[in-house]
């Protein structure tokens, strides 16, 4: 039971930030596309801005790995 709960916690740890990242990137993406239509030279900056919310899912992944390692150990 405890292992199942830990697994569920790991899934939540990565799932919720993934949703948050998707939401943020969904807002930034169209804005970046609109910017690039007017200033194509900002493409690299746009890509970086789109990548910034990925921090959430990456840290979520780290937490999920830590939870799973705890479950395994």
């Amino acid at each position, binding site marked *: 039971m405890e292992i199942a709960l830990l697994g569920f916690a790991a899934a939540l740890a990565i799932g919720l930030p993934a949703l948050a990242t998707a939401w943020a990137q969904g807002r930034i993406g169209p804005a970046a596309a609109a910017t690039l239509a007017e200033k194509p030279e900002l493409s*690299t*900056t746009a*890509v*970086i801005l789109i*990548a*910034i919310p*990925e*921090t959430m899912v*990456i*840290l979520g*992944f*780290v937490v999920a*790995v*830590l939870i799973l*390692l705890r479950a395994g150990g």
Partner: protein
Amino acid sequence: MIVRMMRVRIAGPRSLLDRTLTVLQDLGVLHVDRPPVPDGRAPDRIVMRERRHVERCLSDVEMALNRLRLPADPGAPAERPLSAPQAARRARRVRRRAETLALATSALEDERSLLVRYREFFQAFEALVGHELTWPDGQAFYVVLRAGAGSAVGELRRRLEDALHGEVVLLHQELSSGEWAVLILASSRAAPKVSALLSASRVEELPAPAGIAEKNVLRALPAIKARLGEIPESLHAVDAQRRALAQTEGAWLSGLRVFLRDQLLRFDARTRVFAADYLFVIEGWLPVPRLVDLQQRMQTTLGPEVVVSTIGAEDWTAEAAPVALHNPPLFRPFEVLTRILPLPKYGTIDPTPFVAIFFPAFFGLIVGDVGHGLLLAGLAGLLRLKSEPDTTLRSVSTVALACSSSTIAFGVFFGEFFGSLGPAIGLQPFFNREQATIPFLGLSVALGGVHIALGLVLAGVSAWRRGHRREAVGRSVALGMLILTALSLLAAFEVLPAGLFTPLVVAILVAFTVLVALEGIVAVIELLSTVGHILSYARIMALGTASLMLAVVANEMVGAMGSVLVGAIFALLFHLVNFAIGLFSPTIHALRLHYVEFFGQFFSPGGAEYRPLGHWHPLP
């Protein structure tokens, strides 16, 4: 690093202004800046008129070069015309001739594409046009409907039959392009109504082909075919004339463009010069080591009447100086990464050398695979072969080579070759990141701590150089707190003697108080943000582990698919996808760690680029 600049003043008699600007342009070291002198004088009308003439002539020259399809020649020597009006007239004449030829080519190509369309249209009806001949007093309407408009044909037929009852015949056929060719034959009495109905339905007739007066389809088709046969010859003849014109005038036009562009650059510089009735004053910036060159050149070419003097640093602020970056050849290609952001302000720190060290290191640490490193090295080598020296592509290839070397080195360290295939080629891991997840996380965060600490050091140095002593001390205290926190954590986990824990915590509290006293309450927020930045380096571990797991899954496909061949193909495809992700994701995140976390500590953007007055060069 940022090149040290100095401000100079050049003064001399007004009669020598043009020559002085020409000498400065030849030397190409002075970034001309407006002197801090109130200049209420109206712009020189003669100069303005000259400038307008030059711009008009340049417009003719560039239009002619464009119409003659002559690319910009970077090596073309400046062609100084003996007589400016004569050169302008000749340029205008060549431009007109080139435009006439370009228009003729364009008209012939348009005609050809229209006739090709007609040919297909008429061929579609060749078997059916007997109808038109049986209705000699009638009129034919040729309509092409867009692709997918097949249903509109039925609607058009219904409307025509309702309105005209047997006085109209509609034939249709789908063309190879998906469009619908529609031929409407109407009696002379019904023709005006058909025309009105087509207008009301917003259906446009195909325009009659230029030069083909024949309306009867059967008779028009041979004429179209004959004209289509003639057009290539006409095009060839026009092209021969264009090439002949390019041959005779091309070199002269290219040289004249260089001369006129140079002249425009001097006119631009002149707007930043103080010129009174009898004297002129030019002020500007140049790299410190080039001062002797400037003084010698001025002395030898213009004599003692033109005086070059330096302006003391106390008379100008660092923010006003332009910025030029100069890094050792090994680091220079990495300027391509720092130049994505605005230039740093003068007097601050150029981050390029640090990017050159840490960017490939982070990239290698994330990918850490000999196989991926070799593939990347191959791509980088290819890019290097295909690129010209001193271009962005060449810089990118060098950065990619550095990243591939780092990836291979870390691949050997991790014992990875396309994931878990390392042992198969004799690689033994010194650090197995598949199993040592927590140590890898610790390594990533520790690396983040070092990187951010370096950022704080640079922030302190930069603030000190700009005379912001309080800020410099504040950054040093923040750095001290960071080190004390790391030491206290080591003491808490008994890596260091546990007895050190309490004194270290007390020292942190003292440092915190000093920091708040120096920087105010904002220091607390900055401190928390610094800790957040360090934790952000955990992405190195996260991305590295994800990349490794994808490679392991790819390798397991070989045995999991039933057939070894199918499994191997799937594994290869999966590795390819992983490699593509492995190129994109680590690049973005390594850049982000630099731009957001590292640069955030010390980088002051907003420097103006050093643009010395020099000769014009076409963009590569």
